[in-house]
């Protein structure tokens, strides 16, 4: 029944455990690796181990980092009066790409979902509150929290939940807007996005 010799079959199985990789893609990856030089494969294997050994979670903002606290939390150029809350580390990367946000981040590593048994305690939220005190924030008062969780029901619930906790502290809480993607043509926008964009229209 085994079509491939055992080492190949084993590696195919390992690749198949990765998200978005099925049998065919896994085979392609294995044969790609077999064609590579030994050095290339060693470097790949080393990188895999290195990422696991060196990357930890920032004790301040929960970002993935090789130094603790992370680059954003220690940078003197960041505006320490604003904190943007996101679900996952790659959401931070998406916001950073704008180059226009200069504040700090807080990463939850998930969103509320009772059906998947993800409760408030399962989010990395508790270390947000000490950050809001000036003495823990280089004597700077946090003026605004931007909630940039995903526009899904889970993301919205998480946003509401956090807003309810922070508002009593007298800090401004904002939610990122939803609507039209910039540079696109109206005819290519799906009706749900269009609907939201119309509902959230503003005067010019």
């Amino acid at each position, binding site marked *: 029944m085994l079509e491939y010799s055992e080492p190949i079959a084993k590696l195919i199985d390992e690749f198949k455990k990765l998200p978005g990789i099925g049998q065919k893609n896994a085979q392609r990856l294995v044969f790609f690796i077999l064609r590579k030089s030994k050095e290339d494969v060693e470097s790949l294997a080393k990188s895999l181990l290195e990422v696991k050994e060196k990357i930890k979670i920032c004790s301040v903002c929960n970002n993935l980092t090789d130094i603790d606290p992370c680059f954003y939390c220690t940078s003197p150029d960041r505006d320490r009066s604003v904190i943007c809350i996101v679900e996952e580390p790659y959401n931070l990367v998406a916001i950073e790409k704008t180059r226009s946000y200069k504040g700090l981040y807080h990463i939850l590593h998930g969103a*509320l*979902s*009772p*059906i998947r048994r993800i*409760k*408030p305690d399962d989010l990395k939220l508790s270390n947000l509150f000490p950050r809001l005190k000036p003495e823990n924030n280089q004597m700077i008062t946090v003026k605004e929290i931007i909630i940039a969780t995903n526009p899904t*029901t*889970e993301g*919205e*619930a*998480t*946003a*509401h*939940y956090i807003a*309810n906790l922070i508002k009593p502290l007298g800090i401004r809480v904002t939610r990122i807007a939803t609507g039209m993607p910039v540079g696109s043509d109206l005819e290519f926008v*799906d*009706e*749900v996005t*269009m*609907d939201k964009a119309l509902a959230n229209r503003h005067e010019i």
Partner: protein
Amino acid sequence: MHLVSIEVSNFRNLKGVFCFEQGLNIIFGENGQGKTNCIEAIYFLATTRSFRTTNLSEMIAFGENFLSVSGKVVVSKEIQKEIEVRLEGKRKSFLVNGKKVKVNEYLENLDAVIFNANELEIVRGSPEARRNFLDSGITAIYPAYLRTLLDYNRCLKQKNALLEEAQKHDTAFDKVATMIEPWNEQIVSLASRIHKLRVRYVERLSKALQNQFFNNEFIKIRYVSSLEGKGDLSNYSSTLRERLSLRLGAEIAAGHSLVGVHRDDLEITVNDRDLKKFGSSGQQRSALLLLLIAKIEVYRQQNGYYPLFLIDDIDSELDYERISKLLELLEGKTQTFVTTSKTSFLDKFASKGKIITLKRGEVFSQSLTK
């Protein structure tokens, strides 16, 4: 807009090509020859769903692993399209003129409504059947509504998971309240939208009800919110918010959600009496027909054309008097497909349309077009 023909492969017991008339198509045959399969294939082509099953792979012919239904659709004199839907296991794919397209784009080409014994649930069954009737009608004229509905159901499911857990573990009330709050907040805004659209849709349906049609039976419909008598419905969201917080204790005790648009209903009366309780079986069928006709009328007002009208087993559901009135009403409007196994039906209505006789899943004979 009409369907010229369909071609099927591996669709239940059907084989080959079926050609249709712009007006009435009578699909005739003995039991088990594929009449219902034929209109199911049309329905599947038009909506990508089945009116018989939610497990679509049941439609794949025994021993095969995929099916396809393709159809020629005349959009206007100049424009003809070939559309195709394929099913492989559970995966559907859609083609328009040989090119793969996304489902929303595919669905713009054709639509269908079905009248069969199951649909009688709308007039005699649970409120859920009536809510589904409204929701499918709204989605057909306003596609973005589907997202609202899905999000609402998702929030409800999430909230129910919390309520069930709270009931089981006797969690402190305040703690449950803070956990529920973010979901209730979304439920309020989604439910307000659903309520508003359903009320508006019922008003449109109401105006389109052709009540003069079946004598002595005056049908009225009204959307009945589960919040009726519980506060000011013109300010729905604040009434719902109040109600949700008031009933939270009861919801925890029940272990599931008790307040929201998923408890609403459509009231249908015949001569001012509740149709479900007091209507005769004939009145219920007339009412259902009037509702479906109103539905396609509202559809046309919005989209500019009628959906296909499918009636399975027409003479077991309706008497000849109602049938002839119905066909008269649909004439010149919809492309209509009916199935029958009775020759007496043919005797009476053969002159009104095309007869397609099926034997063992194939076209055995067909009458010449008028």
